[in-house]
């Protein structure tokens, strides 16, 4: 049986728009309504961030949203409570993104079980190296039918990209540049070369490009070189500007991606 993620990529081959936001931001109970607003506005795939106090791969915007969410009491248990029953209204794929320590304290098995129960499709753990994933996490995640989304970067060797491609059954998260998360205004020639190099590898999995997507130039570059784009910090900024109207925040984001 095809997973929701596989279904998405089968039905849509380009311009896939994926949005990241932090659970419990801008209000503790915002998680579900934001998810619904994103789906209603035609977003194809959503990544919900599990806030962590020390997010090593994140820039200031996501750091600040995480700290706010934590200080207002957000945690993994609450997130699962908020997502409980989402599949009655949410049909797009939902992925959880977080740092290993939080998952470890919750218990990896308990985490996978809760994901499956509420209808989460996949997981991204940016500080879990592929080798550790294959050894310690994959058997459990497979048993629960959860997909792991692995990342590749401009520093990932061809050999390693092929190994990541082999061990992926959803899509590959292509990190645009050597950077933490956060808006960039353009991707230079070197980044475009990297995009084209990966494009030319004809990987078996589709790719989405993330980190730094914030406007038309960066969004178009991602869509041209991969199946679509992942937007995080820019959407968090839109939520900050429209903290009480999530639909308006999504509209603001979509407008910026055309400018």
């Amino acid at each position, binding site marked *: 049986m095809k997973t929701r993620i596989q279904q998405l990529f089968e039905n849509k081959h380009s311009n896939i728009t994926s949005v990241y936001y932090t659970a419990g931001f801008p209000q503790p109970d915002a998680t579900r309504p934001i998810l619904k607003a994103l789906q209603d506005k035609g977003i194809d795939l959503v990544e919900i961030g599990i806030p962590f106090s020390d997010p090593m791969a994140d820039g200031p915007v996501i750091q600040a949203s995480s700290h706010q969410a934590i200080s207002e009491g957000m945690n993994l248990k609450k997130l699962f409570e908020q997502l409980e029953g989402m599949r009655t209204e949410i049909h797009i794929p939902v992925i959880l993104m977080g740092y290993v*320590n939080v998952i470890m304290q*919750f218990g990896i098995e308990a985490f996978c079980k809760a994901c499956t129960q509420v209808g989460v499709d996949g997981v991204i753990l940016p500080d879990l190296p592929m080798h550790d994933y294959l050894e310690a996490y994959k058997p459990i995640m497979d048993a629960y039918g959860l997909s792991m989304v692995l990342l590749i970067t401009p520093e990932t060797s061809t050999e390693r990209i092929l190994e990541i491609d082999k061990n992926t059954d959803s899509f590959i998260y292509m990190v645009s540049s*050597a950077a933490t998360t956060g808006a960039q205004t353009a991707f230079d020639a070197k980044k475009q070369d990297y995009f084209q190099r990966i494009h030319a590898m004809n990987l078996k999995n589709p790719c989405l490009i993330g980190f730094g997507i914030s406007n038309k130039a960066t969004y178009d570059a991602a869509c041209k070189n991969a199946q679509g784009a992942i937007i995080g910090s820019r959407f968090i900024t839109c939520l900050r500007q429209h903290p009480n109207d999530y639909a308006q925040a999504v509209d603001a984001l979509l407008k910026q991606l055309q400018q």
Partner: protein
Amino acid sequence: MYQVNENGYFGEFGGAYIPEILFSNVETLKNQYRAILEDPSFQQEVDQLLADYVGRPSPLYHAKRLSEHYGCQIYLKREDLNHTGAHKINNTIGQIVLAKRLGKTRIIAETGAGQHGVATATVCALMNMECIVYMGKTDVERQELNVQKMRMLGASVYPVTSGNQTLKDATNEAMRDWCSHPVDTFYIIGSTVGPHPYPDMVERFQSVISREMKEQLQTKLGRNYPDYILACIGGGSNAAGAFHHYLDEPRTQLIAIEAAGKGTDTDETAASILLGRLGILHGSKSLIMQTEDGQIIEPYSISAGLDYPGVGPLHAHLARTGRSTVLAATDAEALTAAMELTRMEGIIPALESAHALAGLSKITFKPEDVVVVNLSGRGDKDMDTYLRYI
């Protein structure tokens, strides 16, 4: 038995939990560091610098009045006499020579007390390398002298304003810089923390402390081991260096002293081995002070160098296997011990080292016991604190 294994673990602690962008950088380091460290020309370059530039070997001083006071034979390993005033430079000398051999051009570092920052800025001046130091804003304020030294040495010091604005946050920011410069930059980590191979590599660079101790004890006492070694633990580098050559010496008791802050039964503490749970922070699995949800707890200690919520994987392993004994000293106990050393021996210790000295009053010694206290640094940087509290 206490060595790192081929996967980068000390028992169940260690590993390399890093974002993919750093994989290639860390993998290269992992594959090359041992060969480089064992290369005679590398060793010669490092040893020469340690001798002529740092001033090693550091003396092993028999502290007679302190010995009399505690009823045992106390020797101080004088890392406070090193150039830049602490053990930190043993490691930065090693790492900068390594960084050069790897062809790196840009150096970054985190610092708490500023000792590691100064030691890094110093070797960068020596080697003419660009140097960027991340330091929590709280620490920038409480260790002003060291900030001024780093700037005079030509380093850029970036005050970090996230979190508690101390060592943990400085380390986060250094990691983020590293993620953004994964090719040309070498991250000189200041303690036995971070992803494999850093904990092992830093331990090796600091192991000169116990290597000298062995020879010095042999010369002074006709036996090359002490009954006790006491060292303070922030991330664990001075302790790792002082313990290294005695890890397999059952006659030597290894005593690690953590910062209890206001007390291990309060929220204001940095005793991560005593209060931590298995977790992952800054690239390795170790004992971490954290909430039930896995959020890292902001630690507290009067000493900026011990104000860290985790501990190097070696020390988690030594503690869990019973090879080391872990004690904790409060702010007040450390201040008392600092004053005691100052008045009895005429040596003003760093606040971090004062925690190790505070361990003396927590152990019952026999008169013939030989006790080495690793005096990891001098107290210049802590004068403001001392003048305020004593």
